[in-house]
């Protein structure tokens, strides 16, 4: 059954969108990531204009993150204080990101920027996560105790310290603000929640305990993507409600199933799986940049 999307102005199969939403939803529930880094390239692939894909995906992430965070509220695995600090950075970052997005759209380089961002970030994070979790698995197999997190690093030497009780941390607010800001910029440019960057950053840079990371990340992502959705809706009119509804119906159901699968897997296994998916997406996008495209020309709206 084909359905005409009023903002994207293309007709696509409704079940394909539901299926994509569901598949990405399962992953988002399993790993506590929004799934935007998978969904946005998939939407490009099925012919949704990039500007509409990026804006609509932000709206869908609000739904899947909200659905996911409710479970974490009940388990009390959300650090609201840390979330609020990350959020302040995130909102500033999102505002900057939308500006940058519009600037590059006019220059015709937004596609390249989005792809490069994906390749670089997915590549770095995927490899780091893969190596780290491989080491962790090897150590647990050898019978050694799991490695302790570094208790003191450069993060602890910065001023403006704040106590984060849920995370059991006493650190400066500067690193979480910067992490929030960077993720906010990426959220706006790449149409992602930024969970795939936020989660590792919280574990490795901020040193937060793994059990509160996912809930806190989701909590913060809801607000940043909601803000991004509003910015895109008011400045570019590129949020497609019809597309969003189809994606999020699949997405929220998938997220619930994913959360169930996630609780049955070990943390290391979960991380190595996510690392492999991240690397696969990165590889595909890198290949597209390196291999000569079959059509060298592309069309864009005229705008200077």
């Amino acid at each position, binding site marked *: *059954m*084909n*359905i*005409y999307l*009023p*903002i994207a*102005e*293309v*007709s696509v199969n409704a079940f394909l969108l539901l299926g994509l939403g569901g598949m990405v939803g399962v992953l988002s529930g399993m790993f506590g990531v929004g799934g935007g880094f998978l969904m946005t390239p998939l939407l490009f692939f099925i012919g949704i204009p990039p500007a509409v894909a990026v804006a609509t995906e932000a*709206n*869908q992430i*609000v*739904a*899947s*993150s*909200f*659905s*996911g965070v*409710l*479970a974490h509220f009940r388990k009390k695995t959300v650090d609201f204080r840390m979330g609020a600090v990350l959020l302040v950075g995130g909102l500033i970052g999102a505002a900057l990101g939308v500006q940058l997005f519009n600037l590059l759209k006019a220059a*015709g*380089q937004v*596609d*390249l920027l989005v792809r490069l961002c994906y390749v670089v970030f997915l590549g770095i994070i995927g490899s780091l996560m893969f190596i780290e979790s491989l080491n962790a698995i090897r150590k647990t197999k050898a019978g050694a105790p799991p490695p302790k997190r570094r208790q003191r690093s450069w993060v602890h030497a910065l001023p403006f310290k704040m106590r984060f009780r849920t995370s059991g941390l006493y650190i400066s607010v500067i690193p979480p603000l910067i992490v929030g800001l960077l993720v906010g910029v990426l959220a706006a440019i790449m149409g992602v929640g930024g969970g795939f960057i936020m989660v590792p950053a919280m574990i490795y840079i901020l040193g937060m305990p793994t059990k509160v990371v996912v809930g806190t990340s989701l909590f913060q992502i809801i607000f940043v993507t*909601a803000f991004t*959705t*509003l910015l*895109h*809706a*008011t400045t570019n*009119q590129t*949020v497609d*409600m*019809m597309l*969003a*509804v189809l994606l*999020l*119906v699949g997405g*929220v*159901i998938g*997220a*619930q199933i994913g959360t169930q699968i996630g609780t049955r897997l070990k943390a290391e296994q979960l991380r190595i799986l996510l690392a492999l998916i991240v690397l696969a997406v990165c590889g595909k996008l890198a290949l597209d*940049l*390196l*291999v*000569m*495209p079959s*059509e*060298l*020309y*592309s*069309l*864009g*709206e*005229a*705008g200077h």
Partner: protein
Amino acid sequence: MIWLRALLLILALVLPVQAEEIVADMSQARVAITADFDGSEILIFGAIRREAPLPAGPMSVVITVEGPSAPVTVRKKDRVAGIWINTEAVDVDAAPSFYAIATSAPLRDAITETEDLRHHVSIPQAIRAVDAATGAENAEDFVDALIRIRASNDLYQLLEEEITVSADTLFDTSISLPSNLTEGTYRTRIFLTREGDVIDQFETAIDVRKVGLEKFIYNLAHDRPLIYGLFSLFIAIAAGWLASAFFRYIRGA
């Protein structure tokens, strides 16, 4: 003799102006884009009315359907430092969002190049590329690329010899509008030619409009963007909460 002379005189007076005239209609003058819109087929048919005997020379019919025009930027990728990025760009002043041309004979037999230039009938003529012509020296490649890309999406269609003409009088053809259609007034022109010269021209329009939910969403997004954005968020939050509550209920029961 006097009668014959009189007749010839009348013919001579009437002939150059309106020897032959097109009378035409379409199966529908309105296309409604609904939620399940999946393209539309439009039947265009008509007849040639003659006040005089059949003139000499081969006759052809050319039909064009043209969507609303908008400026387009065509970009070309080049390999820079190993990766393919957009380097050159050419602005095309106005290109129709949709253009279909159907003919009853091969295009150049149906209409001469001079007449094509005058009436902007063929696909390259329908694109106004003033800027492109004065810009880069390979600008023609960019316009060709524009046509190629739109043609691959069925947005530009060249339907040579797709019009059936019967008894030198009746003609009909069907034009399929693809599902990725944009809103607007689609100008429809019918040309009658003899030996490639335009004898008569008939113009009408197809009105393509979003209706119902499609129209509501589109208008809300453009007229009340803030309310639209908030509404989108409300739907997202509600859906997220509902799914969570529903699954909890299933597991609880």
